[in-house]
């Protein structure tokens, strides 16, 4: 008896329970039987238990170096530290599928534990949908892609070890986050299916689905950022985003989920766009399945696909089933999805959301087209063409710029329609910001027209958001709160609104970083002998020679020593290096030296070396890249603020607010109002909500 046998048994039991739970859940919903629904909930927890048990047995197999398991022997060896042994769990195809399935089970369990918050009539259908997805993954794991297959003949003494590219601290967090991101779009999808089956798309449903989408969005944001960071620190080409098919695949569901998070506000407030929103949720899930499939199938050549296999076909079938099933439901429910209110004016908040959705979906479609084009070109019997970064930069770049601009305009517009007076007045401050930026930058040496336009748009949008924040804070300040406290309470009380602004500000930082590093990157190839030097920008690098060392685990490291002079002053020594792991003599991993000063990265990659006295380097000066990471963190922070539950604390806050506000008649009308309008005076409360929509 091995741990892998336990894994196989758990997977089979999980599959059985998932099938059973699906049937019980549907029966419970059809017969309105609470007992059956409760039993389905327990069934879901059983599935979770067995999936976690299966994952645990694989991890233990790795930790005890059970090389009788093919997957363990392929992905690890005895010399690897324990944390990479655990990470090897999701480094191959079988393991990452198991990880996907396990996380889905864990999230299903989280849903069960919080299901009292979800609309009761939807719960059984949500469970059933989740179990449907679970069945597909577990079936794959049990049949065609089992991580627990054992060698039938000879058991190897040691394993092959992990792919060198994956032996990086980033490996510990990037793949699991991204896979979890892909997985997490199952929950909004399950809610969408449940709503379509029951035909009830009320505000309660909207709240549940929005929070799950927000969670999925935040996880996917984290996964994308970690991917960029990993690529920057490991691959050695001086960049972070290459428009690689796999990177694109991770971006698709993120884009459609972003569109959904915006258009859902239109549905919430105006009862419009119901059809569209359902479509976006379904598209997000389909695209995340497509992403998982694309990474695994080797359908399109990519830097990131570490394992090609035949299971792509099964994914394609599953994808078709998902699309046909949800389209069928969709058409069946179409008559119930009429908009509740009329559309008044394009110059309104909902108009700006419409533009936002149009652009986001446009980027998704254009990028999808570029990603699939080589395939289409092949189908027509032509050579496999490549669609590379220049295509995406030219097509998507301008759309992103308009999107950024719309991001600044949106908050300035009111729901329904905006009086031109208000609009122009609100436009003034950000416009001043933007004009200052456009005029000062060329004087400061930024002569690149595209970069100037990009920076100006960023300045406009940042100006609009900061002005908006400033107005809120000032109003609170005028009622006696000091500025810092006013800012904190403002964000605390109106989390969704100001959380959203924080996400937007983060995105602007990110955009500034991308524009800066794209337009002003400097690159230099240098082949140096000892004592020779190279100059790039204001940096001067002197080469001192290479050192070759081997540690006890058999990893050989070749490190070059360089001296950095900056503006004529000796700054530091750097040691860019390459690592050769045993069994992977042809795939050296790289240790890139990155020195950050004044928001500019000096990025030195050891490309090649001849003995101890000669080496060639690729040296990059990447301006503003640090802003990408801080902007990304800010986006995540904002996403978490939006998502953070507030119901439990609300009651206590509200009573406090009421008592403190009793002496200040103006306090409510002056505050940019909340998601759920305060409940003092109905007129004032209404007006407060109206005020929010306008500013």
């Amino acid at each position: 008896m091995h741990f892998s046998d336990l894994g196989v048994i758990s997977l089979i039991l999980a599959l059985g329970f998932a099938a059973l739970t699906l049937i019980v859940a549907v029966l419970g919903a059809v017969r309105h039987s609470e007992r059956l629904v409760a039993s389905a909930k327990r069934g879901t927890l059983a599935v979770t238990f067995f999936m976690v048990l299966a994952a645990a047995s694989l991890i233990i197999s790795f930790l005890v170096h059970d090389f009788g398991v093919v997957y363990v022997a392929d992905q690890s060896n005895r010399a690897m530290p324990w944390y990479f042994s655990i990470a090897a769990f999701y480094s191959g195809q079988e393991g990452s599928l198991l990880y996907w399935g396990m996380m889905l089970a864990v999230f299903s369990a989280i849903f069960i534990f919080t299901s009292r918050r979800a609309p009761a009539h939807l719960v059984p259908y949500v469970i059933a949908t989740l179990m449907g997805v679970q069945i597909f993954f577990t079936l794959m794991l049990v049949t065609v892609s089992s991580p627990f297959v054992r060698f039938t003949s000879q058991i190897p003494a040691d394993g092959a070890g992990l792919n060198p590219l994956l032996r990086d601290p980033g490996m510990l967090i990037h793949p699991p986050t991204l896979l979890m991101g892909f997985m997490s779009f199952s929950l909004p999808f399950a809610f969408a299916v449940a709503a379509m089956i029951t035909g009830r798309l009320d505000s309660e449903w909207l709240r549940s689905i929005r929070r799950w989408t927000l969670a999925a969005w935040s996880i996917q944001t984290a996964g994308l950022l970690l991917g960029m960071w990993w690529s920057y620190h490991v691959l050695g080409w001086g960049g972070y985003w290459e428009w690689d098919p796999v990177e694109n695949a991770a971006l698709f569901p993120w884009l459609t989920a972003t569109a959904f998070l915006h258009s859902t506000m239109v549905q919430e407030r105006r009862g419009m766009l119901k059809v569209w929103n359902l479509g976006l949720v379904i598209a997000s899930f389909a695209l995340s399945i497509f992403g998982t499939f694309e990474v695994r199938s080797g359908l399109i050549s990519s830097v990131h696909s570490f394992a090609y296999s035949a299971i792509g076909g099964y994914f394609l079938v599953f994808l078709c089933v998902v699309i046909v099933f949800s389209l069928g439901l969709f058409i069946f429910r179409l008559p119930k999805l009429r908009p509740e209110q009329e559309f008044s004016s394009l110059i309104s908040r909902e108009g700006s959301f419409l533009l936002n959705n149009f652009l986001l979906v446009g980027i998704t479609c254009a990028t999808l087209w570029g990603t699939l084009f080589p395939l289409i070109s092949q189908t027509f019997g032509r050579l496999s063409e490549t669609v590379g970064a220049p295509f995406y930069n030219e097509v998507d770049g301008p759309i992103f710029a308009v999107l950024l601009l719309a991001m600044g305009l949106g908050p300035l517009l009111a729901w329904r329609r905006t009086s031109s007076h208000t609009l122009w007045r609100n436009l003034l401050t950000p416009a001043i910001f933007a004009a200052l930026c456009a005029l000062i930058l060329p004087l400061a040496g930024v002569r690149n027209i595209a970069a100037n336009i990009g920076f100006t748009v960023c300045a406009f949008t940042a100006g609009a958001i900061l002005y908006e924040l400033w107005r809120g804070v000032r109003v609170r300040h005028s009622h006696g709160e000091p500025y810092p406290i006013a800012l904190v309470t403002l964000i605390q009380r109106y989390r969704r609104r100001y959380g959203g602004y924080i996400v937007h500000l983060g995105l602007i930082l990110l955009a500034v970083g991308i524009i800066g590093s794209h337009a002003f990157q400097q690159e230099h190839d240098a082949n140096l002998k000892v004592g020779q030097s190279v100059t790039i920008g204001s940096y001067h690098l002197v080469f001192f020679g290479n050192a070759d060392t081997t540690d006890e685990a058999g990893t050989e490291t070749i490190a070059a020593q360089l001296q950095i002079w900056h503006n004529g002053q000796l700054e530091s020594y750097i040691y860019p290096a390459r690592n050769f792991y045993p069994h992977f003599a042809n795939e050296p991993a790289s240790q890139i030296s990155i020195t950050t000063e004044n928001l500019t990265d000096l990025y030195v990659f050891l490309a090649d070396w001849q003995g101890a006295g000669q080496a060639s380097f690729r040296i990059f000066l990447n301006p503003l890249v640090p802003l990408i990471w801080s902007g990304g963190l800010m986006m995540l922070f904002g996403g978490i603020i939006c998502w953070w539950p507030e119901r439990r604390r609300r009651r206590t806050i509200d009573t406090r607010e009421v008592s403190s506000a009793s002496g200040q008649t103006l306090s409510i009308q002056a505050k940019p109002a909340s998601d759920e309008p305060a409940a003092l005076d109905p007129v004032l409360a209404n007006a407060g909500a109206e005020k929010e929509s306008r500013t």
Partner: protein
Amino acid sequence: MKQRRSLLLVLALAALVGAAWLAILFATPQQPTLDQRVYNVAAQLKCPVCQNESVADSSAAIAQQMRQVIRQDLQKGMSEQQILQYFAAHYGNTILLTPPQQGFNLLAWLMPVAIFLLGLGLVSYVIRDWRIQGRLQLAAPDEQTSDETLADPELAAYRAQLEQELADDDPFLR
């Protein structure tokens, strides 16, 4: 009067920004350095031994040699187009990272435009549909809309008052 003033100010600022951009556009363009020109050419070529990486980005040995060849060709005085054509002639069109804008490949470039136009058509159709529906609903108002219209004058008055207060407070429009 105030309304006119902010409108004019915004328009003036927009004109200013436009003028700045035009000035940059028509000012004598800076001569790109040799490094930049090498990068520009290399970024449009696909590294033949890599998966989906450009010659500029790849650290493979052949990419390094190709960058060296580009550098020498540029120093010899060849234009960027000539170098690209040279590589395309020797390795076939697949060496180009962007599909050339001709023949079947034109499809790659036209499709995004088509998607854009299609989307635009769809959006305008949807908006028109909403508007017609809105009129139908106004003709036979249900509870919700009538409720809203009742509250509207009050809200409008309230909104105007708020705007006025905020405007009085505004540092730029006092």
